[in-house]
Protein backbone atom coordinates (compact mmCIF):
# COMPACT_ATOMS: atom_id res chain seq x y z
CA UNK A 1 0.00 0.00 0.00
CA UNK A 2 1.78 3.11 -1.20
CA UNK A 3 0.79 6.71 -0.78
CA UNK A 4 1.05 8.82 -3.85
CA UNK A 5 0.87 12.32 -2.47
CA UNK A 6 3.68 12.41 0.01
CA UNK A 7 4.69 15.89 -1.00
CA UNK A 8 1.31 17.35 -0.09
CA UNK A 9 1.45 16.85 3.63
CA UNK A 10 4.79 16.06 5.03
CA UNK A 11 4.32 17.14 8.62
CA UNK A 12 4.19 14.29 11.03
CA UNK A 13 0.82 13.10 12.29
CA UNK A 14 1.85 11.33 15.38
CA UNK A 15 0.08 10.85 18.64
CA UNK A 16 1.97 11.86 21.71
CA UNK A 17 2.02 9.25 24.40
CA UNK A 18 1.38 10.23 28.01
CA UNK A 19 4.57 10.06 30.01
CA UNK A 20 4.43 7.75 32.96
CA UNK A 21 4.60 9.70 36.20
CA UNK A 22 7.32 8.57 38.55
CA UNK A 23 6.04 5.79 40.78
CA UNK A 24 2.66 5.56 39.08
CA UNK A 25 1.74 3.02 36.49
CA UNK A 26 -1.35 2.74 34.42
CA UNK A 27 -3.88 0.17 35.55
CA UNK A 28 -5.37 -0.38 32.12
CA UNK A 29 -3.44 -2.45 29.60
CA UNK A 30 -3.69 0.16 26.85
CA UNK A 31 -1.55 3.13 26.05
CA UNK A 32 -2.68 6.61 26.89
CA UNK A 33 -2.28 9.57 24.60
CA UNK A 34 -2.32 13.29 25.15
CA UNK A 35 -5.28 14.63 23.18
CA UNK A 36 -4.44 17.63 21.05
CA UNK A 37 -6.29 20.65 22.30
CA UNK A 38 -7.25 24.17 21.35
CA UNK A 39 -8.12 26.71 24.02
CA UNK A 40 -9.94 29.91 23.26
CA UNK A 41 -11.40 32.67 25.31
CA UNK A 42 -14.74 34.34 24.82
CA UNK A 43 -16.21 37.25 26.77
CA UNK A 44 -17.61 35.09 29.52
CA UNK A 45 -15.84 31.77 29.28
CA UNK A 46 -12.80 29.75 28.39
CA UNK A 47 -13.32 26.85 25.99
CA UNK A 48 -11.09 23.78 25.82
CA UNK A 49 -11.50 21.75 22.63
CA UNK A 50 -9.83 18.33 22.77
CA UNK A 51 -9.64 15.62 20.10
CA UNK A 52 -10.67 12.23 21.42
CA UNK A 53 -11.60 10.13 18.41
CA UNK A 54 -13.52 7.00 19.36
CA UNK A 55 -14.79 8.42 22.63
CA UNK A 56 -18.42 9.32 23.31
CA UNK A 57 -20.34 10.68 26.30
CA UNK A 58 -20.40 7.25 27.97
CA UNK A 59 -16.66 6.87 28.31
CA UNK A 60 -15.34 10.29 29.14
CA UNK A 61 -14.51 11.55 32.64
CA UNK A 62 -13.94 15.13 33.63
CA UNK A 63 -12.82 15.81 37.16
CA UNK A 64 -11.87 18.94 39.01
CA UNK A 65 -9.63 18.56 41.99
CA UNK A 66 -8.45 21.72 43.66
CA UNK A 67 -7.49 23.72 40.61
CA UNK A 68 -6.58 20.85 38.30
CA UNK A 69 -9.06 19.93 35.61
CA UNK A 70 -8.49 16.41 34.27
CA UNK A 71 -9.93 15.17 31.04
CA UNK A 72 -9.95 11.42 30.50
CA UNK A 73 -11.37 9.44 27.64
CA UNK A 74 -11.50 5.67 27.76
CA UNK A 75 -10.99 3.44 24.81
CA UNK A 76 -14.01 1.52 23.60
CA UNK A 77 -12.54 -0.11 20.57
CA UNK A 78 -13.68 -3.05 18.54
CA UNK A 79 -11.47 -4.56 15.90
CA UNK A 80 -13.35 -5.18 12.67
CA UNK A 81 -14.68 -8.72 12.94
CA UNK A 82 -12.73 -11.41 11.07
CA UNK A 83 -10.15 -8.93 9.87
CA UNK A 84 -6.51 -8.73 10.86
CA UNK A 85 -4.41 -5.61 10.95
CA UNK A 86 -2.37 -5.44 7.75
CA UNK A 87 -0.90 -1.97 7.90
CA UNK A 88 -0.86 0.58 10.70
CA UNK A 89 -0.07 4.24 10.97
CA UNK A 90 -1.73 4.93 14.28
CA UNK A 91 -2.46 3.18 17.53
CA UNK A 92 -5.50 3.54 19.68
CA UNK A 93 -5.64 4.05 23.41
CA UNK A 94 -7.05 6.13 26.23
CA UNK A 95 -6.72 9.89 26.39
CA UNK A 96 -5.47 11.84 29.38
CA UNK A 97 -4.71 15.48 29.87
CA UNK A 98 -4.84 17.93 32.75
CA UNK A 99 -5.02 21.69 32.89
CA UNK A 100 -4.45 24.02 35.81
CA UNK A 101 -7.25 26.52 36.17
CA UNK A 102 -6.74 30.04 37.34
CA UNK A 103 -8.92 31.63 40.01
CA UNK A 104 -10.98 33.43 37.46
CA UNK A 105 -12.90 30.25 36.59
CA UNK A 106 -16.22 29.68 38.31
CA UNK A 107 -15.82 26.13 39.65
CA UNK A 108 -19.57 25.53 39.74
CA UNK A 109 -20.20 26.44 36.15
CA UNK A 110 -18.28 23.96 34.08
CA UNK A 111 -20.09 22.29 31.22
CA UNK A 112 -18.95 19.86 28.58
CA UNK A 113 -20.18 18.39 25.33
CA UNK A 114 -18.77 15.72 23.08
CA UNK A 115 -19.56 15.17 19.42
CA UNK A 116 -17.74 13.46 16.55
CA UNK A 117 -14.91 12.59 18.92
CA UNK A 118 -14.29 16.17 19.97
CA UNK A 119 -14.69 17.14 23.61
CA UNK A 120 -15.57 20.75 24.41
CA UNK A 121 -15.32 21.99 27.97
CA UNK A 122 -16.87 25.37 28.72
CA UNK A 123 -15.39 27.08 31.75
CA UNK A 124 -17.39 30.11 32.84
CA UNK A 125 -15.42 33.04 34.15
CA UNK A 126 -16.24 34.07 37.69
CA UNK A 127 -18.15 37.34 37.95
CA UNK A 128 -15.56 39.89 38.99
CA UNK A 129 -12.92 38.57 36.66
CA UNK A 130 -14.95 39.25 33.51
CA UNK A 131 -13.09 41.61 31.27
CA UNK A 132 -13.31 45.08 32.61
CA UNK A 133 -12.52 48.06 30.54
CA UNK A 134 -10.86 50.82 32.47
CA UNK A 135 -11.42 54.23 31.12
CA UNK A 136 -8.59 56.66 31.37
CA UNK A 137 -9.47 60.19 32.25
CA UNK A 138 -7.33 63.08 31.36
CA UNK A 139 -5.97 64.79 34.42
Amino acid at each position, binding site marked *: MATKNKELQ*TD*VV*EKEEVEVVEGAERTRPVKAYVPRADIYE*TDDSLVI*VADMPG*VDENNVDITLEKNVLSLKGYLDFQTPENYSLA*YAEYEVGDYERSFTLSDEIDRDKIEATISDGVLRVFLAKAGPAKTKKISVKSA
Partner: protein
Amino acid sequence: MYRRRPFGYYHSINPWREIEQIQREMNRMFRHMSTGPRVAPGYPAINVWANDEGVVVTAELPGVKTEDIDISVVGNTLTLSGERRPDELKDGEKYHRRERRQGKFTRTFELPFGVEADKVEAMFERGVLHISLPRAEAEKPRKIAVKSAN
Protein backbone atom coordinates in the same frame (compact mmCIF):
# COMPACT_ATOMS: atom_id res chain seq x y z
CA MET B 1 11.74 13.96 25.04
CA TYR B 2 9.56 17.03 24.80
CA ARG B 3 8.36 17.65 28.29
CA ARG B 4 11.46 17.32 30.31
CA ARG B 5 10.91 19.36 33.41
CA PRO B 6 13.37 22.23 33.61
CA PHE B 7 13.74 22.02 37.37
CA GLY B 8 13.55 19.10 39.66
CA TYR B 9 14.72 16.80 36.95
CA TYR B 10 18.30 16.81 38.07
CA HIS B 11 17.49 16.83 41.76
CA SER B 12 15.98 13.39 41.85
CA ILE B 13 17.67 11.29 39.26
CA ASN B 14 16.06 7.90 39.10
CA PRO B 15 18.24 5.68 36.92
CA TRP B 16 15.31 3.49 35.88
CA ARG B 17 13.37 6.47 34.76
CA GLU B 18 16.39 7.59 32.76
CA ILE B 19 16.61 4.21 31.11
CA GLU B 20 12.91 4.16 30.34
CA GLN B 21 13.22 7.58 28.83
CA ILE B 22 16.12 6.51 26.64
CA GLN B 23 14.22 3.42 25.63
CA ARG B 24 11.22 5.49 24.67
CA GLU B 25 13.39 7.75 22.55
CA MET B 26 15.08 4.81 20.88
CA ASN B 27 11.69 3.32 20.10
CA ARG B 28 10.66 6.55 18.48
CA MET B 29 13.80 6.70 16.37
CA PHE B 30 13.58 3.15 15.20
CA ARG B 31 9.84 3.15 14.73
CA HIS B 32 10.12 2.69 10.99
CA MET B 33 12.22 -0.43 11.38
CA SER B 34 10.01 -2.10 13.92
CA THR B 35 6.67 -3.81 13.55
CA GLY B 36 4.81 -1.02 15.35
CA PRO B 37 2.87 1.65 13.52
CA ARG B 38 4.72 3.64 10.89
CA VAL B 39 4.62 7.36 10.99
CA ALA B 40 1.87 8.54 8.69
CA PRO B 41 3.18 10.53 5.74
CA GLY B 42 0.07 12.69 5.70
CA TYR B 43 -3.22 13.49 7.39
CA PRO B 44 -5.11 11.49 8.40
CA ALA B 45 -3.18 8.48 9.64
CA ILE B 46 -4.86 5.27 8.52
CA ASN B 47 -4.99 1.66 9.59
CA VAL B 48 -5.80 -1.13 7.18
CA TRP B 49 -7.50 -4.35 8.20
CA ALA B 50 -7.58 -7.17 5.69
CA ASN B 51 -8.96 -10.62 4.99
CA ASP B 52 -9.69 -12.65 1.85
CA GLU B 53 -12.93 -10.80 1.21
CA GLY B 54 -11.53 -7.29 1.26
CA VAL B 55 -10.11 -4.56 3.44
CA VAL B 56 -11.36 -2.11 6.03
CA VAL B 57 -9.59 1.23 6.16
CA THR B 58 -9.98 3.24 9.36
CA ALA B 59 -8.97 6.83 10.05
CA GLU B 60 -9.39 9.14 13.00
CA LEU B 61 -11.05 12.37 11.89
CA PRO B 62 -12.31 13.99 15.06
CA GLY B 63 -14.53 16.99 14.48
CA VAL B 64 -14.93 16.47 10.74
CA LYS B 65 -18.53 16.59 9.56
CA THR B 66 -19.86 13.68 7.52
CA GLU B 67 -20.69 16.01 4.62
CA ASP B 68 -17.09 17.24 4.54
CA ILE B 69 -15.66 13.78 3.94
CA ASP B 70 -15.13 12.68 0.35
CA ILE B 71 -14.25 9.10 -0.55
CA SER B 72 -13.64 7.91 -4.08
CA VAL B 73 -12.54 4.59 -5.49
CA VAL B 74 -11.23 4.05 -9.01
CA GLY B 75 -9.95 0.58 -9.77
CA ASN B 76 -7.61 -0.18 -6.91
CA THR B 77 -7.02 3.43 -5.89
CA LEU B 78 -8.73 4.90 -2.87
CA THR B 79 -8.78 8.65 -2.33
CA LEU B 80 -9.83 10.10 0.99
CA SER B 81 -10.21 13.83 1.16
CA GLY B 82 -12.07 16.39 3.18
CA GLU B 83 -11.85 19.40 5.35
CA ARG B 84 -11.54 19.97 9.05
CA ARG B 85 -13.18 23.24 9.97
CA PRO B 86 -12.22 25.26 13.02
CA ASP B 87 -14.70 26.55 15.59
CA GLU B 88 -15.89 29.92 14.38
CA LEU B 89 -14.66 32.58 16.71
CA LYS B 90 -16.55 35.84 17.12
CA ASP B 91 -14.95 39.25 17.26
CA GLY B 92 -12.92 39.70 20.39
CA GLU B 93 -12.55 35.96 21.04
CA LYS B 94 -9.03 34.71 20.85
CA TYR B 95 -7.02 31.51 20.90
CA HIS B 96 -4.66 30.79 23.76
CA ARG B 97 -3.49 27.53 22.33
CA ARG B 98 -3.92 25.85 18.96
CA GLU B 99 -2.72 22.29 18.48
CA ARG B 100 -5.51 20.76 16.44
CA ARG B 101 -4.83 20.90 12.77
CA GLN B 102 -7.43 22.40 10.51
CA GLY B 103 -7.92 22.67 6.82
CA LYS B 104 -8.20 20.48 3.78
CA PHE B 105 -6.64 17.06 3.50
CA THR B 106 -6.18 14.45 0.79
CA ARG B 107 -4.59 11.06 0.82
CA THR B 108 -4.46 8.48 -1.94
CA PHE B 109 -3.76 4.81 -1.42
CA GLU B 110 -3.18 1.97 -3.74
CA LEU B 111 -4.98 -1.14 -2.61
CA PRO B 112 -3.43 -4.53 -3.27
CA PHE B 113 -6.44 -5.56 -5.37
CA GLY B 114 -9.37 -4.20 -7.36
CA VAL B 115 -12.47 -3.24 -5.44
CA GLU B 116 -16.17 -3.79 -6.04
CA ALA B 117 -16.74 -0.04 -6.29
CA ASP B 118 -20.51 -0.07 -5.85
CA LYS B 119 -20.27 -2.14 -2.69
CA VAL B 120 -17.92 0.17 -0.85
CA GLU B 121 -19.45 1.32 2.41
CA ALA B 122 -18.33 3.99 4.80
CA MET B 123 -19.42 4.73 8.33
CA PHE B 124 -18.42 7.67 10.47
CA GLU B 125 -18.92 7.33 14.19
CA ARG B 126 -17.44 9.18 17.16
CA GLY B 127 -14.88 10.83 14.92
CA VAL B 128 -13.63 7.55 13.47
CA LEU B 129 -14.14 6.67 9.81
CA HIS B 130 -14.53 3.04 8.68
CA ILE B 131 -14.42 2.34 4.97
CA SER B 132 -15.19 -1.20 3.97
CA LEU B 133 -13.87 -2.16 0.53
CA PRO B 134 -14.90 -5.60 -0.75
CA ARG B 135 -12.55 -7.28 -3.13
CA ALA B 136 -13.68 -7.52 -6.75
CA GLU B 137 -15.24 -10.93 -7.37
CA ALA B 138 -12.86 -11.71 -10.25
CA GLU B 139 -9.82 -11.08 -8.06
CA LYS B 140 -10.79 -13.18 -5.08
CA PRO B 141 -8.42 -15.98 -4.30
CA ARG B 142 -9.62 -19.29 -5.76
CA LYS B 143 -9.04 -22.61 -4.26
CA ILE B 144 -7.43 -24.98 -6.73
CA ALA B 145 -8.29 -28.60 -6.34
CA VAL B 146 -5.39 -30.94 -6.87
CA LYS B 147 -6.29 -34.03 -8.82
CA SER B 148 -4.36 -37.18 -8.53
CA ALA B 149 -2.96 -38.39 -11.85
CA ASN B 150 -4.26 -41.93 -11.86
